[in-house]
């Protein structure tokens, strides 16, 4: 972005303005565009789509009244929450209670600085990009603990503590899975990691070797747990903790926690896409050569679809799997995922000594395996759907 601004300054677009002012305006504008034109609608539409997807999976209808197919439901929800009374319990610690949504929201929004939407569509390609994402998302824990403690409510405190313990535990497998890719790419920059891969699936780090293949699933599972998503949503388990750390929150403050949760889903998908699925890489077609605009759009769409696929999978998992118990959650992390992730890490590092030809053969074989798994999966799903009782073919009037 700096280069682009410099170009504009050189071209005399901002004659008479000091360089710093132009930079500041540019940065503010970029941040504002990302927030209001991308993050806010995205989180909103995700909240609507999630309810629609569950509804279809559970033979219900879901919100379909506001706008076409109910797509504007999120705006209605936002306005409703804006008009709700803001209740701060007398027993609560008022300062921290009001501060917590700010911290959670900030921690989630800052991740968007380094998300590479396209070859040049990135706010700032920090040279420590992926580590930066791990760092800012770990700030969310502080916000959640703050919310849980400040509410002075037993449900909130228990939810906050559980959530914090869960997030920090799953940060280890997630961090180690990221580390695997950093070893392969040799850089921490998000664009650098994407450039280390190719547009073709067999050039993705997902299929680089068996260990990264396992690492992807480790990352995705750990990221779901870090985002407090089902089946790991015990911090806000409705049946036991009312609503966890958000029990005492109402109106806008409540909304911001969920804004962050839904937006965070996309961050999970985007990071997984960047690390394992080749990011915005598109095939080098002839039509892209002459029009950089078309190329940028193609890259953006590729990245968005890849990332959103994982958001959809997260919804799917939420509609499918029951919640795990707190002790199962902890033993899953420390007894299975942490050792497994370290084994994968050492395996990946050892694999880097394999000569280039061997690596190419392995990625081809892994790609074949991936295709086979996908085909078997869809055959099984098709079989189950055919076997299901006709009552399940509920076709509501939509």
């Amino acid at each position, binding site marked *: 972005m700096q280069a682009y601004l410099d170009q504009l300054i050189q071209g005399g677009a901002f004659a008479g303005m000091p360089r*710093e002012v132009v930079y500041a305006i540019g940065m503010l504008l970029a941040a504002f565009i990302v927030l209001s034109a991308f993050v806010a609608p995205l989180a909103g539409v995700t909240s609507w789509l999630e309810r629609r997807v569950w509804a279809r999976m559970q033979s219900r209808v879901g919100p379909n009244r506001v706008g076409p197919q109910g797509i504007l439901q999120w705006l209605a929800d936002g306005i409703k929450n804006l008009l709700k009374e803001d209740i701060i319990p007398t027993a609560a*610690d008022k*300062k*921290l209670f009001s*501060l917590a949504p700010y911290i959670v929201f900030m921690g989630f929004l800052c991740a968007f600085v380094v998300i590479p939407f396209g070859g040049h569509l990135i706010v700032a390609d*920090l*040279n*420590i990009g992926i*580590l*930066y994402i*791990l*760092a*800012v998302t*770990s*700030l969310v*824990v*502080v916000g959640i*603990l*703050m919310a849980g*403690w*400040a509410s002075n409510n037993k449900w909130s*405190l228990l939810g906050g*503590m559980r959530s*914090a313990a869960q997030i*920090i535990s799953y940060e280890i497998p997630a961090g180690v899975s990221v580390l695997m890719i950093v070893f392969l790419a040799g850089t*921490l920059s998000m664009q650098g990691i994407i450039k280390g891969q190719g547009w073709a699936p067999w050039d993705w780090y997902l299929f680089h070797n068996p260990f990264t293949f396992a690492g992807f699933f480790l990352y995705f599972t750990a990221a779901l747990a870090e985002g407090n998503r089902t089946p790991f949503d015990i911090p806000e388990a409705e049946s036991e903790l009312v609503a966890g750390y958000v029990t005492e929150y109402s109106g806008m403050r409540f909304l911001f926690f969920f804004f962050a949760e839904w937006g965070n889903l996309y961050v999970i998908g985007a990071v997984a896409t960047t690390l394992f699925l080749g990011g915005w890489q598109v095939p080098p077609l002839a039509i892209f050569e002459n029009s950089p605009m078309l190329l940028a759009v193609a890259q953006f769409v590729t990245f968005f679809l890849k990332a959103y696929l994982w958001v959809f999978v997260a919804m799917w998992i939420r509609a499918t799997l029951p919640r795990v118990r707190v002790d199962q959650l902890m033993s899953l992390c420390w007894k299975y995922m942490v050792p497994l992730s370290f084994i994968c890490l050492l395996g990946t590092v050892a694999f880097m000594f394999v000569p280039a030809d061997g690596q190419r053969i392995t990625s081809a074989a892994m790609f074949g395996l991936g295709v086979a798994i996908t085909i078997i999966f869809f055959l099984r799903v098709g079989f189950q759907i055919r076997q299901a009782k006709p009552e399940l073919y509920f076709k509501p009037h939509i």
Partner: protein
Amino acid sequence: MNGAQVGFFILAGLLIVSSLWVVFQRNVVHSAMALVAALFLVAILFLTLNAPMVGVLQILVYAGAIMVLFLFVIMFLNPIGLEQRRRLWWGFGALAGLLLAGALVPVLTNGDAPRDPVVATELFGGPEELARSLFTDFVLPFEIASILLLVAIVGAVVLAKREP
């Protein structure tokens, strides 16, 4: 005074304010939150010194991880309402503060330039430089650090066992 210096003084001022907040806050959880702010500001200071890697690790390890540990300890001990002023602790605190100030006097009064200053280039605090020095000059400390961490785990497990 140029822009960078103004920025430094603003940051340093905020850092001092938040550190004082940590010390003078009556509520321990509020102190912990002020500490998060202070650590965050230190991370920004590292960034202005061209050391992004150290700055981000500061946030990841201190503001993220260690603060969670602090908060867990605070919630385990629950010192709210227990706090009493004790003359004795004031004495100890003052003594420690004086010692620290005494140790800082030579640094503050030293007007000479460092003997072999390192030029902070763009890459100075980046991951590559850090790794190179970890693998060349500091291999042994690097491995010893892991043993230290191992001892820390063992210690924690042993201490937690004493729980009645």
